[in-house]
């Protein structure tokens, strides 16, 4: 078994070997004694949760140890009492990265104070927001940071059993975690009598089975217990009565990955990053119509514009930015006029969105905001567990209305209906899924009301997305090459060779074939 001294020595030796390898690969530079990735993409980033991603070999525990891995755990077990650890986490003001932003230290303290023979520490790796993949990246590229963070958490609250609930779609993460757990046990950093201190902590993996609502704490617990993963009626907090009715802490992957780094570098250092109320960094999955899509970890409070332009390189293909969606199905669409909003818990909340788990989807002029609202509602309706009526029925009604709007059969009063139903769902649903489901609709109604009106009144989709509202027409750029005539399945394009052609709107089935083939972009969509 490894001791603290041996861990420190191994770290020194391995660090030299790792540095040599990395410098040879020319991927990194050394900044203030820390290894960071090289290149413009990383310049504005501060990496805490992702600090080892892309740097170490996740299958080799010694590379993790080389970068101070397991030192925080060792020091906690040897030098600190559980309450001291909790105080440090509270002091750092670390807030949950899984969606709600709840203060981690306060939560741990609840579980710590609740006396019980058996407590559980669960890592929520269900990563349900479609479009976010930071948890996957951490699990696959730096699994030991999660194991170490969990062991520290377990020690702090007095638990010796951990679970990681991993999304079914992430088989590679499961594989990497299995290897990491095995290695950590071999080194005496997990399992019985960790580092000879008498502290035991074991971690079991549980695979999700494809239900978004299982990311919600109580539903996840039901699922681990082998049941239909439906949220519980919350009479008790999970920190008092959670898994098998025992005190249970549930934290997100990214939250947990921050823990060892905070203890290693100190709460002051962490608090100096970010804003007063939202300390530290947040990882965002910058995706959609952005030039350089990928994961970015930035200090809380960085304006949206900087993230999208300076790091992401702006919108793809020189198109105009229209909106940014944050927070996934629980979040909202932020219009271009609000791009200077700092990204932290409070600021996004104020403008009707949330940080959520960190999805950041860039949308350009070709994205229809009504269609996006419909897309998210469809997701919610699919994923609603059906336990409570407002969510089960209300979201269906909203989806019906949105579908009518996108296919041109809605009337003006339907927009008012939407708002009313949304309010009721938000106020009366049992769990977070229902409570936040109306957000994508409300935020688009708020910022893109005109686009809704154009759909309802003029029966047009300005972005050219809603199939039923699209028409194709040929303008004067037409050179009469007849290419479109040949691909039209309903033979509804006519005209003389070398003259402007025309589409018979009564016969056109809006298949778009002519639009795609026209060599001079003479066919207009809208």
């Amino acid at each position, binding site marked *: 078994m490894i001791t603290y001294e041996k861990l420190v020595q191994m770290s020194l030796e391995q660090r030299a070997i790792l540095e040599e390898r990395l410098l040879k690969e020319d991927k990194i530079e050394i900044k203030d004694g820390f290894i960071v990735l090289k290149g413009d993409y990383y310049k504005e980033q501060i990496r805490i949760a992702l600090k080892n991603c892309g740097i170490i070999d996740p299958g080799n525990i010694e590379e993790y140890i080389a970068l101070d891995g397991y030192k925080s755990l060792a020091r906690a077990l040897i030098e600190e009492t559980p309450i001291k650890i909790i105080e440090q986490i509270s002091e750092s003001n670390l807030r949950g990265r899984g969606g709600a932003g709840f203060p981690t230290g306060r939560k741990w303290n609840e579980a710590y104070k609740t006396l019980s023979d058996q407590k559980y520490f669960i890592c929520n790796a269900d990563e349900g927001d479609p479009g976010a993949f930071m948890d996957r990246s951490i699990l696959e590229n730096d699994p030991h940071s999660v194991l170490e963070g969990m062991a520290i958490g377990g020690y702090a609250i007095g638990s010796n059993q951990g679970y990681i609930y991993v999304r079914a779609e992430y088989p590679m993460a499961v594989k990497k975690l299995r290897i990491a757990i095995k290695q950590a046990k071999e080194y005496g950093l997990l399992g019985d009598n960790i580092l000879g201190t008498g502290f035991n902590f074991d971690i079991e993996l549980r695979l999700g089975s494809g239900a978004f609502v299982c990311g919600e704490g109580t539903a996840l617990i039901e699922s681990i217990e*082998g049941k239909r993963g439906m949220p519980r009626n919350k009479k008790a907090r999970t920190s008092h009565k959670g898994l098998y009715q025992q005190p249970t802490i549930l934290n997100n992957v990214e939250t947990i990955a921050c823990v060892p780094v905070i203890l290693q570098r100190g709460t002051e250092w962490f608090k100096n990053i970010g804003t007063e109320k939202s300390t530290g960094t947040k990882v965002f999955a910058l995706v959609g119509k952005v030039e350089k899509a990928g994961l970015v970890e930035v200090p809380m409070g960085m304006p949206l514009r900087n993230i999208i332009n300076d790091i992401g390189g702006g919108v793809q293909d020189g198109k105009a930015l229209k909106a940014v969606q944050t927070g996934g199905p629980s979040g909202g669409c932020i219009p271009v006029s609000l791009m200077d909003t700092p990204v932290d818990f409070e600021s996004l909340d104020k403008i009707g969105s949330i940080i959520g788990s960190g999805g950041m989807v860039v949308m350009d002029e070709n994205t229809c905001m009504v269609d996006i609202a419909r897309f998210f509602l469809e*997701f919610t309706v699919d994923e609603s567990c059906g336990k409570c009526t407002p969510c089960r029925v209300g979201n269906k009604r909203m989806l019906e209305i949105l579908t009518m709007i996108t296919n041109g059969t809605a009337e003006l009063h339907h927009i008012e209906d939407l708002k009313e139903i949304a309010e009721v769902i938000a106020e009366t649903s049992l769990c977070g899924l229902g409570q936040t489901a109306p957000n994508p609709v409300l935020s688009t109604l708020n910022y893109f009301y005109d686009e809704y009106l154009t759909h309802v009144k003029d029966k047009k989709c300005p972005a050219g997305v809603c199939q039923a509202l699209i028409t194709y027409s040929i303008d004067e750029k037409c050179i009469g090459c007849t290419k479109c005539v040949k691909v039209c399945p309903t033979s509804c394009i006519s005209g003389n060779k070398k003259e402007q052609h025309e589409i018979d709107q009564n016969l056109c089935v809006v298949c778009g074939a002519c639009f795609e083939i026209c060599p001079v972009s003479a066919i207009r969509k809208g």
Partner: protein
Amino acid sequence: MDFKFDIEKNMEKVRCLETFIEKNRQVPGVLIPVLQEAQGLFGYLAREVMEIIARGLDVPVSKVFGVATYYTQFTFMPKGENDISICLGTACYVKGAQEILEEVQNILGIKDGETTPDLKFSITSTRCVGDCSLAPVVLVNDDIYPNVNKKEVKDIIAKYKVEVECYDHL
């Protein structure tokens, strides 16, 4: 479409499953891992298989059905030899994944969630496979196709058709 589960032909796998159940039946909350094991073995959950599980764990069949039908990962119909999954997560959706799904459906003549009658192909849409920076993403079995556009779909499917034909001639 109806598929018949042939218990005789699958006897070896059934034994595997029974051993797994026997070994783990004391583990709390084991029903879901058992269902996952079963789906891994047979590719889907036939009624007969769920009955075996119910017996093995000594729980009502209704409980097994109830849990299995709750989670979208479990299927009750065999998948095709080649399972084409199209990501319809947000990142892929805004980059045109819907169009790609429609194209696949047109080419194969089946809808999302169905299997071709010859059992060669099935279509399963998913919600994010965690490769969002490569959107839109299509997975065929374990092969990942990044940044797919509508025109490439035909070629992607053709690859698997050829393989299947060669396989048949052997």
